[in-house]
């Protein structure tokens, strides 16, 4: 078990190092934005990976409500937490890129605003979990909130998109005509961050399962 995790961790480390090397040395420097554009290889795939993690979390929540198996709750909380971590990376790397590229740290553009709201929603989900003692109740209630949150995502995106496209837009995203090497590095980065996400979710899941084991043992000890 530990050997398997070790091997996988090692592989993810190698993949991450290759990605880091590729995004600094293999991908060509962008002509207008220069060096700072390279943060794109961390920024954009992190956004996609965080959405994937939130999707997994929602699946875990729904499955918990119907099956009541604790493992689904562990999956939901693990992936929500990892999703928030990746979403934080997106929100931190964004301004680093935006300031030299657009001249402002933050713009209330549709994509930025909805990512921020998404982050807030999942942080609220994690806070809710800390406010309940009983494990079964916490699992059920947070699964319910997880479903609500996920249902809200398309509405948030839709309304903010609609709202912002009606106002003058400070930013125009143009992804057309991406250099082929850049594209390859981008996909590599996406792959390695997805593998990293899987590793983190797995580790977090193991932690949750050990916690549960500890709790059961403690209860048995008290009973004796």
């Amino acid at each position, binding site marked *: 078990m530990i050997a398997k995790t070790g091997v996988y961790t090692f592989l993810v480390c190698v993949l991450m190092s290759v990605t880091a090397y590729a995004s600094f040395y293999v991908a060509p420097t962008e002509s207008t934005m220069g060096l700072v554009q390279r943060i794109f290889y961390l920024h954009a795939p992190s956004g996609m990976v965080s959405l994937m993690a939130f999707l997994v979390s929602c699946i875990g929540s729904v499955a918990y409500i119907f099956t009541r198996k604790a493992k689904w709750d562990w999956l939901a909380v693990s992936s929500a937490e990892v999703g928030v971590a990746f979403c934080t990376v997106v929100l931190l790397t964004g301004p680093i890129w935006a300031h030299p590229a657009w001249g402002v740290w933050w713009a209330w553009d549709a994509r930025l605003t909805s990512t921020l709201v998404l982050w807030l*929603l999942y942080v609220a989900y994690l*806070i*809710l979990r800390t*406010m309940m003692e009983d494990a079964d109740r916490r699992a059920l209630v947070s699964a*319910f909130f997880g479903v609500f949150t996920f249902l809200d995502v398309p*509405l948030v995106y839709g309304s*903010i998109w609609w*709202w912002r496209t009606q106002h003058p837009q400070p930013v125009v995203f143009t992804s057309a005509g991406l250099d082929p090497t850049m594209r390859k590095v981008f996909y590599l980065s996406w792959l390695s961050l997805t593998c990293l996400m899987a590793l983190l979710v797995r580790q977090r899941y193991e932690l949750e399962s050990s916690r549960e084991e500890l709790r059961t043992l403690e209860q048995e000890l008290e009973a004796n």
Partner: protein
Amino acid sequence: MRLFANTAALLGKELQTEFRSRELLTTTIVFVLIVIVLFSFTFDPSVSESRRFGPGLLWLAFLFSASLMIQPSFLKERTNDTLSALRLSVGDPFAIFLAKLLANACMLLLTQLLLLPIFAVLYNVRVFPVFPQLMLVFLLGSTGVAVTGTALSAISAQARMRELLLPLLLLPLLVPILIASTEATAALLDEKPALRWDWLGILVAFDVVFLTALWLFGEYLLEE
């Protein structure tokens, strides 16, 4: 049919308990009034400025007050230990949610109805010619707030720090409502008033999505 009969009986109970004391309604109305007055210090409340900021501040005040007003919805059942009795008295637990959310929507609408003329006088906007349309926006907006708020109050009643937790969970979830209602209200208070069906569409979508989710998953929240 049983569902409607049960809901009507429970709704009667909810409204009766509230109108006996009128504590919640009076406090909420004064709270919104305070917020509306305080907002006037943050910008110059001339006619054109009021048109720009008025709808947003009105809805923000409503959302904040709703997150406080909906708080006791399930808490009072818990403190009086009447939730089990409620559950036993109805066949479908959805009736409990439906009655509570209808009562909350009624109280929200009443608050809005009473405060709209005061807002119109203080901020010098003409609401009378578009009153029916404004009521439609308020009805759809309040329904969305009541549906999500009632569901989440069932969650927060079971947690620690519940007074802070409900706004924390509810407000980010209500982003689509805030945007759509504000924009629809702003269009109605404009020099050339217009009923914006696109924003009303978002409100309807929000109401339908969350009402369905509550119908599907709500009963699990009331498990003892």
